[in-house]
């Protein structure tokens, strides 16, 4: 293994606040699972798929933020782009699919659990706010807006390195992604978007990621001062690095939205077909 590759493989960050937050989330969930297992002979356990989804979400966030991908994201734009996609399109949807709130609540000490239950009670401000932010139009505008605004070169450059602005950027990405995926994933399914509206909903970020990806790929000069000034490694120029970043956003980023869009389209057509068949049967029955 070359020294450069070995250095990359060994460059794991040990950022205490992040490590602690992720470990805390995983531990609280594990305690919740243990308590649910003891209660009513384990009948209250969440489905295994949900447990796997939760820990995969934590692992994806860990990889994005603390692995060499995170460490080298300051040197390579394409790794920074990969990190953002892992968070927004990987970790957040996986955590939502796990629907972990009830299990996490059981993992908390009793006073903390009572406090959280009081804060998120029906009719309270927190629930009202969450309800507002997860309205499809609001969530879509916020998510697409956040992704667009943070790719403006002046802002992107400001949010580099270990700075408060960088933390703000990641927080906004995480919160808007949480709001965006909620109407699509909706673990309880009670207010999940129908197939047709979901298709349109997913089309907006799909076109945005294609547009930003294409702009980055076909730009003739490096757009971000941070990466233009960074020392060059692995034989990649700043422009090539930017082109790869553009392709990452364009191809995997675009496909990520396109595949569920195609599934939604197929389901919508299937639904329409069954509706028509039912109507025809009804018509035949009347005759």
């Amino acid at each position, binding site marked *: 293994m070359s020294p450069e590759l070995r250095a990359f493989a060994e460059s794991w960050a040990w950022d*205490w*606040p992040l490590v602690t937050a992720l470990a805390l989330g995983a531990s609280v969930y594990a305690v919740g699972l243990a308590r649910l297992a003891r209660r009513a002979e384990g009948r209250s356990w969440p489905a295994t798929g949900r447990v796997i989804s939760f820990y995969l979400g934590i692992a994806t966030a860990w990889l994005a933020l603390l692995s060499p991908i995170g460490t080298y994201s300051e040197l390579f734009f394409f790794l920074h782009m990969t990190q953002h996609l892992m968070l927004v399109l990987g970790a957040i949807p996986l955590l939502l699919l796990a629907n972990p709130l009830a299990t996490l609540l059981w993992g908390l000490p009793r006073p903390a659990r009572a406090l959280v*239950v009081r804060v998120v009670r029906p009719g309270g401000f927190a629930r*009202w*706010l969450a309800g507002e932010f997860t309205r499809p139009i609001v969530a879509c505008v916020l998510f697409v807006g956040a992704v667009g605004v943070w790719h403006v070169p002046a802002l992107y450059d400001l949010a580099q390195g270990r700075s408060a602005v960088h933390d703000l950027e990641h927080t906004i990405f995480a919160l808007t992604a949480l709001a965006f995926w909620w109407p699509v994933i909706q673990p309880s399914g009670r207010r999940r978007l129908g197939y047709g509206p979901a298709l349109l909903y997913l089309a907006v970020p799909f076109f945005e990621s294609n547009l930003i990806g294409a702009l980055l790929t076909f730009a003739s000069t490096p757009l971000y001062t941070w990466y233009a*000034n960074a*020392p060059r490694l692995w034989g990649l120029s700043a422009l090539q690095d930017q082109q790869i970043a553009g392709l990452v956003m364009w191809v995997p980023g675009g496909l990520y939205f396109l595949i569920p869009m195609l599934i939604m389209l197929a389901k919508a057509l299937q639904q329409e077909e069954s509706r028509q068949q039912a109507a025809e049967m009804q018509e035949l029955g009347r005759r």
Partner: protein
Amino acid sequence: MKAETRATDPQPLHRRDHARALPRSGLAARIGLALTCLLVLLRPESAAGNGGAVRVADAVAGPFVVSVFTDPNPLVVGWVDVSVLVRHPDGSVVDGADVWVVATGSGTAANVIRRQATRAEATNKLYYAAKFEIAEPGPWRFAVTVEADEGQGRVEFGAEVVPASVLDEPLVLGAMLAAPLLAVAWWIWRRSRGPQPNDGKSPGG
């Protein structure tokens, strides 16, 4: 499927009798959680990552090509780190070099800090990193010397160290103030329009 519905439905948790029915054997878990919370609060700054803002990019220093980064960005009073990437002119990384960082603030002898930068201190193992505490804000001079079998090189740069406060970042301060204000304004506006069909419902009902 039935078991899953029961586990994911938060409604039973709203009832106090269920909270009371929890076993009392979670003492170890509680201690673990308390210790973890304590760790979050303490946030050992010396363990933070490095890399950061490029201060010197690919400068020729004797037989080496040297880049220097400082973290955090901007430099604030408290723990800072200086990371150094040392390469040969052909781009290959120099291993086993002696790298020293000297930071001088306002020219007084008391404000001179000298630290060896090592691979062990670096998160990115391509770098040599030195972590140290800067106590005073103001203009600082940094000198980095590199010594290896090939010879010796030196680069210098200046940087402004600002007082440590998240409130110094106008964008962050603006977001911190604007977010709750907007939420409250939105709530008042919605309330002024009378009850809405979604009021009181969480995401998901």
